[in-house]
């Protein structure tokens, strides 16, 4: 394969190393090479350009590492699967990269390496990407996993040297699309030929998907004996144990942390420890996380809030308040920061038995919420502070608005459950989420019934009102768009309706590109829209 027309992005925080690797890349034939000094620069470049290849040093300074970067850009879908990722590491980083869990680089290269070795590896990665192109095409931000599965079938039938890679991807796709029985069969076929850790973990995940938690747990424990450094096995086991035995799950994360002491895993430990009310362990974990990410790309209000809570719960009021104050030093001023600080501070005072101070801080936080739109984490922090200050009704009102708006976001639903759990009102949380869900379903159903019975105008009015209120609810946006398109279709093409439908569809794509109803609605738009209607990129 000719590397001369390939483009690369090289990420390393040390200028000398950048120069050295740049020279080696050039010797391997890659002249089109951009450079980034840190994660922020790399992300800026990735959002603007497409590269065939990322070459990233494991150690990026400021508490950040290449593995964190890889996880971030893969999760945010900033890095298409078709772009190769080569990690360069020293001995220490190698142990962490090579056992990386969910997001592994395509290959890694240990320092020192020759230009010939680098060139050979690059060739291999790019040939692999080329061979699996048909699969990767459907695995991007707006991909269709079933099409990716079909592409896997084709490649497996062709019996190339990439069959095993395709099988591995196919297993993941089967699990992601809920076909756990097929996934199980696939992993058994692989394991019958030879032992390999990914198929063992895949098999365990298939067991979990089939509700066979005990079999999964037993297998994962065997995997950890045979492959004690395979992080994916720890992560899967910890996830599984969270349901049945949270303190045991915490131990599993502790073990994984010994193997790969990444900041991300420290946060995970902190979260579990908080959940287990092991506040001193949580404090330790967050203290290290905060320290490491002081100036790094991944620093977050959440860490400081969690640190403050860990301290407050142990009665360390002074340390807790210090953590809140520290936030002002390490983050830029914003309404979100001020509101978060006030909400956390209020909870600390509530915990310390100072209701007046708690109320004062809470009033400040609520005031900021009225003045400016706050993100979900900050809003839920305010709700938590309301609970702590004995204002349960206000807390629930705030949470209800979040739940309505983010109905489809499981992660946010989990965060809401966790707020109720901390407030020791888990049952009320279940009730609230259930009611909200039913209310939104009813609203959508009513509108659909109206539309079907020909009362399009009423349906549109209802859905547009709902869509403007809950801007993150893709289902409502899609329904509103569909009603508008139906009306335009029925009453003759109307650009006003179509433009409005376009706006709602764009919003749905932005908030939840994977919504199952989205594809159909987009196709309907393309069918109906005349050439001069706004184009829909999806």
């Amino acid at each position: 394969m000719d590397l001369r027309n390939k483009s690369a992005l090289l990420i390393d925080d040390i200028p000398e190393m950048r120069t050295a690797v740049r020279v080696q890349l050039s010797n391997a034939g890659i002249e089109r090479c951009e450079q980034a000094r840190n994660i922020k620069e790399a992300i800026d470049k990735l959002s603007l350009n497409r590269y065939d290849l990322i070459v990233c040093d494991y150690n990026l300074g400021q508490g950040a590492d290449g593995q964190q970067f890889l996880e971030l850009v893969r999760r945010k879908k900033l890095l298409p699967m078709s772009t190769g990722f080569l990690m360069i590491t020293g001995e220490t980083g190698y142990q962490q990269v090579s056992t990386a869990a969910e997001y592994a680089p395509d290959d890694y290269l240990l320092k020192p390496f020759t230009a010939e070795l680098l060139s050979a590896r690059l060739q291999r990665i790019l040939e692999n990407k080329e061979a699996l192109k048909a699969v990767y095409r459907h695995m991007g931000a707006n991909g269709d996993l079933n099409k990716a599965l079909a592409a896997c079938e084709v490649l497996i039938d062709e019996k190339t040297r990439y069959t095993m890679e395709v099988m591995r991807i196919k297993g993941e796709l089967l699990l992601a699309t809920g076909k756990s029985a097929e996934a199980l069969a696939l992993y058994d076929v692989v394991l019958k030929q030879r032992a390999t850790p990914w198929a063992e973990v895949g098999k365990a995940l298939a067991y979990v998907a089939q509700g066979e938690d005990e079999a999964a747990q037993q297998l994962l424990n065997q995997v950890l004996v045979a492959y004690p450094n395979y992080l994916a096995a720890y992560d899967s086991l910890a996830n599984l144990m969270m349901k049945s035995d949270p303190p045991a799950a915490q131990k599993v994360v502790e073990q994984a942390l010994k193997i790969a002491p990444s900041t991300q895993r420290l946060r995970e430990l902190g979260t579990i420890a908080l959940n287990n009310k092991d506040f001193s362990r949580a404090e330790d974990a967050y203290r290290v996380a905060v320290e490491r990410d002081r100036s790094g790309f991944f620093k977050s209000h959440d860490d400081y809030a969690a640190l403050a809570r860990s301290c407050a719960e142990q009665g360390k009021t002074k340390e807790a308040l210090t953590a809140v104050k520290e936030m002002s030093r390490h983050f830029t001023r914003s309404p979100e920061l001020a509101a978060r600080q006030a909400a956390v501070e209020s909870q600390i005072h509530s915990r310390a038995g100072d209701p007046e101070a708690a109320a004062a801080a809470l009033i400040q936080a609520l005031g900021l919420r009225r003045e400016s739109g706050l993100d979900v984490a900050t809003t839920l922090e305010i709700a938590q502070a309301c609970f702590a200050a004995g204002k349960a009704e206000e807390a629930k009102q705030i949470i209800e608005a979040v739940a309505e708006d983010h109905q489809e976001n499981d992660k946010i639903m989990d965060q809401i459950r966790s707020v109720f759990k901390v407030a020791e009102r888990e049952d009320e949380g279940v009730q609230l989420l259930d009611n909200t869900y039913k209310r939104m379903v009813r609203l959508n159903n009513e509108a659909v019934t109206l539309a079907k019975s020909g009362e399009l105008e009423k349906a549109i009015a209802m859905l547009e009102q709902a869509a403007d209120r809950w801007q993150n609810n893709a289902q409502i946006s899609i329904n509103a768009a569909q009603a508008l398109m139906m009306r335009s279709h029925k009453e003759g093409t109307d650009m006003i309706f179509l433009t409005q439908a376009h706006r709602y569809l764009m919003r749905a794509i932005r908030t939840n590109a994977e919504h199952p109803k989205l594809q159909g609605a987009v196709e309907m738009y393309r069918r109906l829209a005349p050439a001069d209607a706004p184009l829909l990129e999806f």
Partner: protein
Amino acid sequence: MDALVAAAIHDAKSTLSALGVWLSEAQREFAAQSAKPSQALARATAMADTLSRQMVELLALYRAGNGSLRLAVEDHHLRDFLADLMGELAASRSVTLPEEEGGETRAAIAIHANIATTVTADIWAFDAYLVKFALLDALRNALRHGKRQVRFSLLPEPDGSIRFSIEDDGDGYPDAILRGEETTEMRTSGSGLGLSFARLIAARHATTSGRHGRLELTNDGFDTGGAHFSLILP
């Protein structure tokens, strides 16, 4: 103290890494100005390589000693792996150094490398980095002790494992080595820790059904009593 040892080995490795990169660059610059490659630079590069290798073995053994050696078991294409291995071996053999400098003078020895047709798997899960080290070490030893030829093969095992086999037509291992002892005799014949390293790496490979890797040392190379090194991976 322990932490200091690890850190020191690590520092030395990092320095060697940078040195290696600049030495190759220096060779290229030299080649651009001169018709003949620089023998001195080639030697320096080869030595930096040897030092790096020794550091890796040292670090692994040190880590095994304090329980922090971690294997990275992942799938690898066996053909690619063997190609990498032979490539690295050829690169280090192409530089001929006087024996007292740790070099390989008998570059004329023929190596026959092959994968048995009975090996059905294209891909195997193992720590390619550490296994490659162990095998390169064994190959270098075979080249040092072999008279005319060295055979390197990949064979299937009855229990479903695979065997990397390296034979030479030399005088075979001393008895002490066959008995598994670490003797001074062994140390005089090169990196005495190489075999301990290989034994360690093999044993650390395991499967969920409880099979482990192992090392086998016999004196039946080429059926003439030559050294025969086998590293078996489950």
